[in-house]
């Protein structure tokens, strides 16, 4: 049985990843009647860290310290990159908006002062990131720390304190390891179940008891990012208070708890702002004319006909389903928009995986004008109210540049602002 319903709204956001959430946040804040269609579970893959530009120029083994110098160089060298469509001020503004939005939902991020921070990862390596959650922030004390303690849990996959200690032990006087065994029978411990346990104060006391013997000989402790789901920072502070040790979280492999926190915070605040969410909905068909769009969204038990003024296409790349790789070429799945891509399949990838120039397929995507409206081959826009945001944009090798969140935030923020300005102009 499939029910049917009709919705009329100002703007539809297709995709519920970081870009989609950012667009919905801005649109709902501006008072637009917003509908979201997509699968927010993709945020389980997010690390919870916001990268703006981690590496530039692309020299292996280097980290960009001050973001502004890198951005200036990037704008000079690759004019097609989404960052080249905006000023540095606008880029930072879009981040400010998102952190402020998340702050109201109870998820706080540490201010950055325009500099990247090196975050310790669960592999024992360091990764540059621009904005980091408060729970991870204290990892910048690592440089001063002499006696480090790393806690891990038996059965928690992808997080091994011993391995991490081996990677970083030459930076400290001592690196102690605390391995906690929760269950004797079970050999697998799921991060989400563990994070849910941290919400109980009894469990927290139990953990603190195990940490206490190290309190005298250690000045900083790292633990997997599982310190509670909803009030993570409060729980971490509580644990710090009991043990007297400064503690920071270390982001882990998916499903990542900081990603879950991000998802929960967005969903909570968007629900408050009355954004209508069509969970796991797929856009089956669409038609548009000068006045607007009509979309047909289908999910498990509902077929929804949406009449809307504007659309933000934030459907992601191959993993999210926004782009689809056919044998000969890459296509865009919903509007069949022209996709900028290498001429033939042989050029998609280099032979070497770690090739310095990267792979050309990673630069493929939708080309847009300065306010992120998709354009055709003649550089004229497809529709005045159709925008694209996030990783679907072309000339955006975000994995290598470490610029994923920044591009998503900037494009979503700019696109919604532009749509809002237009709709005021036309008096709608």
């Amino acid at each position, binding site marked *: 049985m499939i029910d049917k319903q009709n919705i009329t709204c100002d703007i539809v956001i297709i995709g519920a990843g970081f870009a989609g959430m950012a667009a919905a946040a801005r649109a709902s804040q501006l008072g637009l009647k917003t509908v979201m269609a997509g*699968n927010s*579970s*993709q945020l*389980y*893959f997010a690390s919870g860290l916001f990268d703006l530009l981690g590496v530039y120029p692309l020299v292996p083994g280097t980290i960009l310290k001050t973001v502004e110098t890198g951005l200036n160089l990037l704008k000079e060298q690759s004019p097609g990159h989404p960052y080249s469509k905006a000023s540095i001020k606008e880029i930072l503004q879009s981040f400010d908006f998102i952190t402020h939005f998340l702050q109201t939902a109870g998820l706080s991020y540490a201010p950055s002062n325009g500099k990247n921070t090196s975050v310790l990862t669960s592999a024992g390596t360091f990764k540059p990131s621009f904005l980091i959650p408060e729970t991870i922030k204290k990892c910048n004390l690592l440089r001063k720390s002499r006696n480090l303690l790393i806690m891990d849990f038996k059965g928690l*996959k992808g997080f091994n304190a011993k391995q991490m200690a081996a990677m970083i032990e030459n930076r400290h006087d001592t690196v102690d390891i605390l391995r906690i065994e*929760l*269950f004797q*029978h*079970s050999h*697998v411990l*799921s*991060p*989400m*179940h563990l994070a*849910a346990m941290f919400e109980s104060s009894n469990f927290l006391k139990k953990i603190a008891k195990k940490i206490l013997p190290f309190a005298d000989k250690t000045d900083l402790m790292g633990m997997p990012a599982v310190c509670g789901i909803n009030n993570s920072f409060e729980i971490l502070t509580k644990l710090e208070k009991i043990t007297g040790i400064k503690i920071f979280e270390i982001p882990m492999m*998916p*499903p990542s708890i900081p990603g879950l926190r991000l998802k929960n915070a967005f969903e909570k605040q968007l629900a408050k702002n009355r954004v209508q969410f069509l*969970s*796991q909905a797929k856009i089956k068909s669409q038609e548009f004319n000068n006045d607007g769009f009509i979309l047909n969204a289908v999910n498990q038990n509902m077929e929804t006909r949406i009449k809307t003024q504007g659309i933000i296409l934030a459907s992601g790349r191959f*993993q999210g389903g926004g782009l689809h790789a056919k044998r000969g070429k890459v296509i865009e799945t919903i509007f069949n928009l022209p996709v900028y891509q290498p001429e033939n399949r042989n050029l998609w990838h280099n032979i070497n995986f770690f090739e310095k120039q990267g792979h050309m397929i990673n630069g493929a995507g939708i080309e847009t004008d300065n306010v992120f409206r998709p354009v055709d081959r003649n550089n004229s826009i497809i529709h005045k109210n159709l925008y694209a945001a996030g990783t679907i944009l072309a000339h955006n090798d975000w994995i290598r540049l470490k610029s994923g969140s920044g591009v998503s935030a900037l494009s979503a923020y700019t696109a919604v602002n532009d749509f809002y300005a237009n709709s005021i102009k036309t008096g709608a």
Partner: protein
Amino acid sequence: MFYPALYASLLFAAAGFLFQIYRFNRTNKLWQKQKGFKFNFAPAFFNTLFQTKLFKASKTRWIIHSLVLSGFIYLLFFHALADLISVKIFAYYQPTVDPFQFLRNVTGFMVAMGCFGFLLKKFFNVRSTRNIRGKYQNLFSILLIFSLIFSGFMLEAVKIISEPLFMEMVEDYAGVDEDSGLDDLKIYWEKNYSVVFQNSLISSYQSLEEALEEGKILNEEYCLDCHSNISSAFVSKALAGYLKKTAQFLNSSRADNLLYHIHYLLSFLMLICLPFSRLFHILLIPFANLKPKSDIQDFQKQKMGFHPVTLDACTGCMLCSQVCSVYPNFVVTQNIEVLPHAKIRSTRKMMLGRHLDLKELSSLQLSNKECTTCNNCTNICPSGIDLQALWITLSKTLDNMDLKTTPAHGNIPFKKEYDIIPGSESFDNCVQCTICTNVCPVIEYSSKSENDMTPQQIMNLLRLGKKQMAAQTQMVQNCLTCYSCQESCPGEIKVTDIIIELRQAVTEC
């Protein structure tokens, strides 16, 4: 006096046994009986005598239980039935001679410690049974055993300090009187055998050393053949030490006679109570273990049945509820009726012909439908009850009663052709991100009852084309179909629908 009482209580016990079987069989027409007989002698023997299943399930419980069982078996055969057994085997048998005196104390102590362990576990060990701890159903049986053992020790202790008993024995067996050294023997026994005399001679006697020497010779001559040193009766000796202060009163009132009667009365009481208390499980566990365990194929071929009387082999240990796959369901809904131990309680009531109203019956029916037929309960049950067969028979019985509580939407018909599993494109999006496993409540609570595979692993098996292997996993049976995994899957894979289809595939083939 002794034998008539013994026969009377034996008769009582036998009648009680028959009555219990009659009570269960009265309702038997409702319960499908097993067709054809097949016996498993080896497990019945080993599980009855050594509790092999209990050993696998819980080591502490096994230790406690073995203490009581082994101690009690010795006491039953070599102490209670001494006239029939011990005397025939050992020509020199006397209850007060080592090693019998020592062994009696050891085994009595073992049983007492076991009972104490039972009680400790009942009162303090809440965590092992989580929050489903029941009432103290076994308390009566445990206290009965404990008081029997305690009265035995008291009897021995009172006999040790008894002056009248000493005098009787001297009269009967030792040809000594005041002239030929009775005082010496008295002193020797007061010192070495803890007898308490009205007028203590040790303090007033002049040549103590001499008297002890004399007493020792007399003791060797008349007493030592039947009375080993009481230090081997370590429990009774300690008790006797405590009783010394009240010895005068106990001796003059002949407390030994009273305790003697109490001890016998308790033994008979235990015999009579055997079919009416939890002690009944002693007789029924061998019976429950004789029957081979049935599987789901047996049931479909109408081969399986459940013998109601085996339900009395249940000791109320609640291990079944701790490993039950439906436990997460109980945690969320707090409906205790979904757990095996609660269902056993209701079923017993029903079988014994007690009236259950429609509400109770339909609640039992709905709760029983939650069973995922994972067989965990049958596998762990230390009494070897075929619980899985019970749930299926119970379900049929309740369905036949026409309670009209079946859900409004009825049974959803399943196509023979499965439309989700065969398509490999169903799993194209799976990147093994483990989110389905992370949100799964079954996995979250599976630290106790082992779950073989996680949802994400099942998806991977299917992606590799190993449908048969995936269908045979425990996870498919344990799934609560809560749809958390399907709702959270970033790849939008129909995880729950697939698992339901797999489960259907197992039961239909």
